[in-house]
């Protein structure tokens, strides 16, 4: 299969959906004429023009709210937050208007909207620019949250998100944009991946490493080391979707290995992994041979220093160490 970059996989998803449905609009700061701060929307303004690819002022609450309002009239906006970290200035629109209007109207209104952008640490941009809010948004019923780790997942999940009739928040990653991976050719047919389906990225029998986003890559690297250096066979489950969540897959892998380490770039207090641990202990209580352990970002705002930030984040070394504690 051809290999393309995560960034280009997303770009292809947008291009195809712009083609498929004339109500799809891309919107955000610098997405049009500038081609996107991270070039994810490259060429789309030139191809699709002012109506379909729209630059906005630096007014996240205003333009995201506008997108939600337009979605109520059947427009399908795909809104870029240049960084997901900037959710903080648009939080009300994100957790009240998008998440609750269907409920408060007794089902009369729905908001088929996608919010997207990168959400990750590791690029030395400091505390305010390095939030990982997937767990935060998944806490709000009414919202859906996906976190693709590979180019194929990025394309497939983005296309499903755009077609979904509920608000879907897609968390990309600046450190994955340049990664290459196999993605089916468009000529092979419409390629989508359903929200809510986890993916076993590596089979194993001794321990389950459960992760999402870039942490999946750390888990895979750790699994190799565990195999080679410690003869431990680790299964790696990529959640892909945080809400809906593939609880079945989570329970199955734990029932198989009886041990789990959760790898999660969230901060530890109420990270996504807190919820996963809670579910596992409830639904696989009798299968656990050891407490569930977690590798999260060290509990402090994101440090800037390029010499040290990678140590604050989950990384393969920290995953290996944690596994060795319980196997």
């Amino acid at each position, binding site marked *: 299969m051809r290999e393309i970059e995560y960034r280009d996989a997303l770009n292809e998803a947008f291009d195809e959906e712009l083609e498929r449905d004339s109500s799809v609009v891309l919107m955000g700061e610098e997405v049009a004429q500038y081609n996107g701060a991270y070039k994810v929307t490259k060429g789309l303004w030139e191809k699709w023009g002012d109506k379909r690819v729209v630059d906005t002022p630096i007014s996240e609450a205003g333009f995201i709210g506008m997108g*939600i309002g337009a979605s109520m009239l059947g427009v399908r906006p795909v809104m870029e937050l240049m960084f997901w970290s900037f959710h903080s200035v648009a939080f009300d629109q994100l957790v009240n208007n998008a998440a609750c209007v269907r409920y408060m109207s007794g089902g009369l209104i729905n908001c088929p909207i996608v919010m997207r952008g990168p959400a990750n640490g590791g690029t030395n941009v400091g505390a305010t620019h390095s939030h990982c809010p997937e767990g935060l948004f998944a806490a709000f019923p009414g919202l859906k949250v996906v976190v693709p780790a590979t180019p194929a997942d990025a394309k497939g999940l983005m296309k499903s998100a755009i077609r979904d009739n509920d608000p879907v928040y897609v968390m990309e990653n600046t450190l994955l944009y340049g990664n290459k991976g196999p993605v089916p050719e468009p000529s092979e047919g419409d390629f989508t991946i359903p929200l809510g389906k986890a993916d076993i990225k590596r089979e194993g029998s001794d321990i389950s490493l459960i992760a999402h986003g870039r942490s999946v890559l750390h888990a895979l690297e750790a699994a190799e080391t565990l195999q080679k250096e410690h003869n431990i066979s680790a299964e790696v489950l990529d959640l892909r979707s945080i809400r809906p969540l593939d609880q079945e897959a989570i329970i199955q892998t734990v029932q198989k290995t009886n041990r789990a380490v959760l790898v999660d770039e969230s901060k530890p207090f109420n990270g996504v992994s807190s919820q996963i641990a809670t579910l596992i202990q409830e639904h696989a209580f009798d299968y656990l041979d050891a407490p569930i352990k977690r590798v999260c970002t060290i509990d402090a705002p994101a440090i800037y220093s390029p010499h040290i930030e990678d140590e604050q984040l989950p990384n393969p070394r920290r995953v290996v160490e944690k596994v060795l504690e319980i196997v």
Partner: protein
Amino acid sequence: MAGSGYGLDRLMISSPETNVEGLDFSDSPINQSLSDAEKIELYRTMMRIRRFETISLKFYNAGKMGGFLHLYTGQESIATSCASLMGDHDHMITAYRCHGHSLAVGMGMNECMAELYGKATGCSQGKGGSMHFFAPDKNYWGGHGIVGGQIPLGIGLAYGVKYNGNQGCSLSFMGDGAVNQGSVHESMNIAALFELPAVIIIENNGYSMGTSQKRSSAYRDCLAQRAEAYDMAWDIINGEDIYELRAKLHIAMERARKESLPTVLEIQTYRWYGHSVADANAKKYRTPEEIQKYKDEHDPLILWEKKLIAEGILTAEEAKVIGKEAMAEASAAAEFAESSPPPSIEDISKHVYWETDNDTEASKVGRHFFND
């Protein structure tokens, strides 16, 4: 500084385009075209809102409803005039003080009253309550509780109208206190920059809860004038006068529909009751005399009634009949609400996701709800 800033301080400022000395708004074409029956309908709508709230208040006080009840009494002319001008591609959205707008766009008293009662027959099936009435089939998008939060949605409706290639507009309402929310500012800039067909309306009743306009906002002559910051058209309207309301609203709506340009309108009005029924201070931050003066001299319902009688369109007796009918309709709505079933515990989990409500393929993948 006790009492500083109390009370209403209304400047009669001259607005940019329409406040011409001696202008009689009844002469404007949009009012000339009104039939007698239509004029009486306007009266009926205002009266229905008034009586709906009379009954709501009664049963709220009797413990039949939960949460807040923000009454619109005194402001009925505004929603009524706006709704009377709406065409197929015009949309409305407002804040939590939404009963008047809801009835004005044509929602039924039954579904509205049942919503207040928290019943399954309510317009939002008992999920929204007083602040959250909706009727998308009537181009009416609610009813929103977070101050200012609906204004971005409102310009989004304008965006949608324009995107879909329709000649229409959105009417987005907020109060005088709401103008100081950041989202309002962001929306105004975007509306002007993107040339959206948006009419942004400040219903200025002089107070945000217990805070007078002067204590919450810094401004030059009036709040609508802030539109100049975005090089946007604006106007100020005496909300007591249906003719003035319709004339000036029409100008702004036509600007939106024909030129795709936004306008900010400030409509001076007054609320008779407290901020919500729970507002025990209603008579502390404003004088009883001020309240009485507005009731006696500035009641938009009575002023319109007088005008219609003077025009020979309505008699006092006919007016009374309309009042009685409205009261009867509202009372019947209360009975309807009272006898309706409440939502069930299972209903709590509905209307969260479109996909799960519609039991689609997508909704069958993964866990959507996390109840133990």
